[in-house]
């Protein structure tokens, strides 16, 4: 009796030891499926926002997608206010806050540079201060708002976090969450 219960105990103990090994190897397997460090590192892009010039579009890259960065000039901010308030009846400052990022004293448009219609890459026209998609003629203003169809919505804004004069793309922040909640952009 004593003997057999001891055998039973050892059997269970052996099972437990085997189980520990199985769980440990499962952990290794899970880790092997994780994105590689090199992939992870490429998932965050840090931009130094002090380097950009007003009304000059710079195309950065984030997670395989083109990212437009456009620093707004005073004149652009003013004209936007006028356009927008005509459209919506809201004041300049309200509208600016919606799509633009205020970093330091300046305002920036930071968005995914893919037309929301069929994913072509729109071109920026500094003289007219707007984006034109050459594929199907969609147009966006200098805040990435759509002004001429076919695109269904404005240019999407990637998750961002403002850190002094640095901007980290790929990391969310309360400012970005607010944009999502306000429906300014879809989740990218």
């Amino acid at each position: 009796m004593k003997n057999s219960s001891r055998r039973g105990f050892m059997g269970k103990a052996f099972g437990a030891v085997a189980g520990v090994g199985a769980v440990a190897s499962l952990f290794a397997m899970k880790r092997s499926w994780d994105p590689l460090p090199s992939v992870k590192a490429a998932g965050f892009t840090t931009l130094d926002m002090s380097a950009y010039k007003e009304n000059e579009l710079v195309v950065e890259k984030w997670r395989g997608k083109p990212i437009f960065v456009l620093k707004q000039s005073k004149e652009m901010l003013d004209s936007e206010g006028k356009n927008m308030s005509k459209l919506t009846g809201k004041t300049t400052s309200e509208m600016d806050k919606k799509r633009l990022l205020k970093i330091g004293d300046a305002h920036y448009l930071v968005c995914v540079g893919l037309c929301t219609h069929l994913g072509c890459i729109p071109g920026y026209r500094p003289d007219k201060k707007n984006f034109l998609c050459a594929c199907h003629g969609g147009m966006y203003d200098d805040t990435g708002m759509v002004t001429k169809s076919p695109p269904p919505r404005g240019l999407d804004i990637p998750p961002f976090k403002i850190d002094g004069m640095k901007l980290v793309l790929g990391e969310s922040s309360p400012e970005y969450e607010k944009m999502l909640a306000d429906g300014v952009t879809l989740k990218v």
Partner: protein
Amino acid sequence: MKELFILAIVTTFTLVTYYLVEPFAHSHMHKHHESEHFAYKDLPALTKKGDVARGKDLVMGAGACTGCHGIKVAGLSAPMDAVSSAAAYGVNPPDLSNVGVVFDPKFLASVINNPAHALMLEHKYNAKSGKTFPMPQFYGAGGDKSQEVADMVAYLQSIAVPEEKLTPNMAFETACGRCHAIHYEYNLNGKMHPAWTQIGETPKFKHTQDKLAFEMNVANYNDSLIKYLGKLPPDLSMYIRSRGEHFISTFVENPQQYLKGTAMPRVGVTAEAAEKVITHLQDVGDSKRHKRESVGKNVMIYIIIFAIFAILWKKQVWKELH
């Protein structure tokens, strides 16, 4: 009998499902456009008979066509190489050697008269946009303008290869090859042809430097194209399978009816040349089509025999069971 009834039910439900997910669904996804058989009804017909000799003078005249275009068969190369031309005009102006056979004469005349209209690019080049098409309109050389245009067309037709000598790859190169690449090698009459880039066939390279220099030229040329057209026109290697014959021929005939506002011009090919372009795309992207058909026929014959023998075997085995 009962089994046939069950088979009828299974077949009916299968066919209904097939109909709904294929013809029915696709009719709601893509608009169907009938071919106009490359008639170009909107372009005016050529009424005057052209004179080849006068046409030659007009084409070769100072400040005329050869200011930008080369004519290889006449021994004239283009004033600039493809890459610099593209940098200057957006795209390399075509060599005129074979345009007389590839393009419809009505279309050629219209291109000379008013390129933006003939190419259906007036949405891009108009008074409002303030942009003009890189190729200037022909305002006449002092005489009867429509006669002059007819003369030029006649000349271009006279220097082109005869229609039966126009090979599928020549048709493709003249009609599509300055904007579209085909990165697959292809077999033409038993001979392998190298891949096509927008600036010509990819040569064989001895030195890495030559290869890099060529690739640099292609990249520069394509950059100009992107600036000019908004994006790089697609590589057409697999278009015969991804788009199919009907789409390609009706699209080429009138790109705007499929993609309103597209930068792709109406190409203006004749029906015969369009057919050759399609043949070329088949040679490149579906080169085993003839084999597939012949093997298919033989396999069908075999498999029907197989089925007959299977039925006979079943009948024999089941005689004992019923």
